[in-house]
């Protein structure tokens, strides 16, 4: 039987690792180059790196962060892939098949596209044709700030009017191989996944759903799987608890979820 996956999401901003809250507050945690080897050793099933740097903000010279050796995202990817012997997904600010090609060459196994898929849905199809659906993840950010659930792009700033289930169905048709489902208000909140959203999306598409946003305790993971997700993902919890990999897998296994053990 295929295993249910546990996936850390690592957020990069201006070349540094950050923790995020509501997609808007970002606290610097450290320099990823000091950490990648440790992340690659985790007993997890996959790694997702998302570069959430905003356009025009990237500046390797800034010194107000008191961190040395800020590194370009591509160099971080090269470094990560040297010791990453599990599937590696890279996302953030990807706009073209050429950019994806460059990421695959540097060792990414999958790419995650988000805003550009909304702006130009044909990109999903072009990417699936060039690299195969299994390599194309569409990341969907959902907000319910407007009273009902809506897809938001550009790191939580641009409303689209798209309904999440309808958009998930569309990206599946366009050729996406997986959906990474995030929720803006739950990001960094620790109040658990939006299980209703996960259930609605997972029931309406055949491709796997990676659930993210809201994890506060390890016991949140099995709930996402029960709601229909193929993988439980989280970001902040990985930086603020001890033995996050072991405890996370154990919480899933104790709830009767089939996971890979090492």
């Amino acid at each position, binding site marked *: 039987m295929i*295993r249910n996956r546990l996936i850390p999401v690592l957020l990069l901003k201006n070349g540094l690792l950050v923790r995020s809250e509501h997609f808007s507050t970002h606290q610097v945690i450290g320099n990823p180059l000091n950490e990648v080897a440790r992340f690659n050793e985790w007993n997890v*099933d996959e790694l997702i790196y998302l570069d959430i740097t905003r356009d025009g903000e990237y500046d390797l010279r800034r010194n107000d962060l008191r961190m040395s050796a800020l590194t370009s995202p591509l160099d971080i990817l090269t470094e990560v892939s040297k*010791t990453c012997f599990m599937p590696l997904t890279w996302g953030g600010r990807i706009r073209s098949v050429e950019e994806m090609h460059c990421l695959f060459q540097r060792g990414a196994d999958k790419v995650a596209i988000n805003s550009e898929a909304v702006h130009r849905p044909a990109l999903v199809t072009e990417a699936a044709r060039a690299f195969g659906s299994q390599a194309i993840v569409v990341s969907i950010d959902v907000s319910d700030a407007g009273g009902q659930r809506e897809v938001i792009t550009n790191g939580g700033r641009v409303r689209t009017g798209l309904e999440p289930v309808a958009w998930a169905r569309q990206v599946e048709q366009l050729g996406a191989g997986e959906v990474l489902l995030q929720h803006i208000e739950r990001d960094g909140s620790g109040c658990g996944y939006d299980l209703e959203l996960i259930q609605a999306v997972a029931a309406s598409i055949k*491709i796997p759903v990676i659930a993210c946003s809201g994890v506060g305790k390890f016991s949140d993971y099995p709930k996402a799987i029960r709601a229909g997700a193929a993988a439980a993902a989280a970001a902040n919890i990985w930086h603020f608890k001890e033995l996050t990999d072991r405890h996370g897998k154990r919480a899933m296994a104790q709830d009767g979820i089939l996971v890979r053990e*090492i």
Partner: protein
Amino acid sequence: MRKAGIVDYGMGNVASVFNALSAIGTDVCLINRPQMLCDVSHVILPGVGSFGDAMGLLRAGGWESALRQDVLDGGKPFLGICLGMQLLASKGTEHGQHSGLGWIPGDVILLDASDPCCRVPHIGWNEIEICSREGSYRSAASANPVFYFVHSFHFRPEDPSIVDGWCHHGVKFAASIRMRNIWAVQYHPEKSQRSGLTMLRDFMASEPRSHNT
């Protein structure tokens, strides 16, 4: 002198196979001309993409005859990964019928998607039912090791006795095969963490074996 050569014929992410072999201390290089086969003791054929495209590139690059001479006739240790396993078949059925390298009689067919619990492509970690520990599972730490799979098609050999590991996903299919010096795996050892690196170490320890030995 052991040295691994990764056949770089234009299909797939050779970098991750290269990185995994480097990490276990293997002397490894990419080989982009068939003449370079004589510089290496172990040959690895990776591949991500479609069967017909890959065979086209192997033929155009002069690989088909060179690999046959070195591996099938010469007995040099060989590892096919994913599409690199499927290409050993006599026939592929992805986007029409294509003839393969034909080293091992059998065909490559689509996974059965009729079971709604078993989505196709088969993406993720799945366990192996080991039949023989003489090849890929010599040093496997578990009786049912788990590896990472990404594929829609699978190799169905005519002679099931060459299968040394099975996997279940809707159907029972060959996760790995071994015929003398020829090893092939449907999963990705380079992306299967510890179990994958262990398997690659075993491959690098394997010796040449021709018809006569």
